[in-house]
């Protein structure tokens, strides 16, 4: 029972991170820098 708390929390946290990462990919693909916006460094 206690392991289900650990597992469900972990799955929820991974899902939040994955959704955030997905949104980040989508937003960066559909936006481009304005002239004043510095470019991403490497």
């Amino acid at each position, binding site marked *: 029972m206690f392991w289900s708390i650990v597992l469900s929390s972990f799955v929820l*946290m991974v899902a939040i991170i994955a959704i*955030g*990462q997905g949104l*980040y990919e989508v937003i960066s693909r559909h936006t481009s820098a304005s002239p004043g916006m510095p470019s991403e460094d490497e």
Partner: protein
Amino acid sequence: MSQYGILIAVLIYEAVTILGIGWWIARRSRQSSAEKDSFTHGGHGLPLPAVSLTMALTVLGAVHVLGVFEMTWFMGASVIWFGIAHVILLTIVCLATGRWVRRLKLSTVPQFLEDAYGLETRLLVSCVMAGAMFGFLTLESQGLGILFNAMTGWDIRAGGVVGGLLGVAYVIFAGMREVSWLNVINAILLYIALLAAVAYVAFALPGDGYQTAAQYYKDNDLDFMISIWGTPEILLTFAIPMTIAVVFSQATNQMLLQTAMSAKTEKTIVRSLWIAAPVNGMFAVFAAVLALATKSWPEFNQLNEKVATSTMLVQVLPPWLAAALLASFVGVILSSFAMVSLAASTLFSTDIFKRLYKPDATEKDVTRMTRICIVLLGVGATLLAMNMPQILKGVNWLLAWLVPIFWLFVFGLFWKRNQSVAITALLSAWILNSLWSFTPLPSAVGMANVHNAYITLFVSGGVMIVGNLFVDGAKGIMKPTVQLANK
């Protein structure tokens, strides 16, 4: 090993790691001491492990360690939402605000506010942010004293003073590099000790371990305590307000963004997400499991919720494991103490000392001033902590001060910039925050249970939106152009 034996072992561990790593890093960074922001930002060259674990531990401090054990007693596994709120926060920082400050090559958040709005906004935010961080420092110092007391019986004030000294030493020798590498060691110790404690308690619990513990909650009609979804009431009154307060107040806070500013590249910050968020978030999960086990244990069930779990850990775990666990808890609180004092000192040395009084200051001058501030803040916070301010109320009030900065930051980057609107938003939110805490205003308007962060969030957001709609301003610094979907 007696409780004092555990205490001595913990103090030796902290002293050896702090002095050893501090000396080693200080020696290695001597050649690069003239490099820009070497002390305060590690020369903007921190690698992935240092960035990710420093982010994770900066927002894992006294409230996590002490608060989760205590709150679990009443709300059960729903307390894990405190960890989930921090996962959302770290996701936003690693993918958005942290990347933006690194891309703009900033040294402080208020530095951006001068570029976006003007010098007055920079100074106003710098002073308030440093003041709020001094408040956090006081609470961390008190938290160290309480932790020592709960696990070893040592006097709270003596523990706070020794904790304050260790906290200053955690950062004073080599600044950001020292903090970040100590954090790597402490994060590893934390997870080894925490997982070992959870496993050991499984065998030590009466009956079938955690199975029997879960049965206790079912037999007592407390099923909601063993689910992270708890009750709708807990979700509405705890999970959502907690997430809003944590996310909006910390996403643009210097103490978290200073690590992002110190990263080697923007990609380092993005990759850090998959380490920083789980390391921070899962702490609350394992802490809640330990507290739930304690509550189900007849021997510890009658104890006060503030000390029950720590008492169980000290009495049940073998002394070496109790010592390792306490050392790791002290380590994570020290890491927050060090990062908060470094961030507040950086604000003073960069935004006040260099910007206003000595524009031609060398890297050595700035480092010296930062070190002086770290010592003064550490001593001041430790002395103030002896008055034992209330931790939870203090955190609520302090977090609410930082919330309006989020709007200034996001609107200044992506929408519109007008200094008068920005300052009006800041002042109205800050005045209302103080009225909300120190006068009967909340009860008078029938909103006694409304968190300060909500008030500052909606007031400052409202002023910024209305102001930007009706007052002219410059275009946001990073205002993106949206591409057509079929392009």
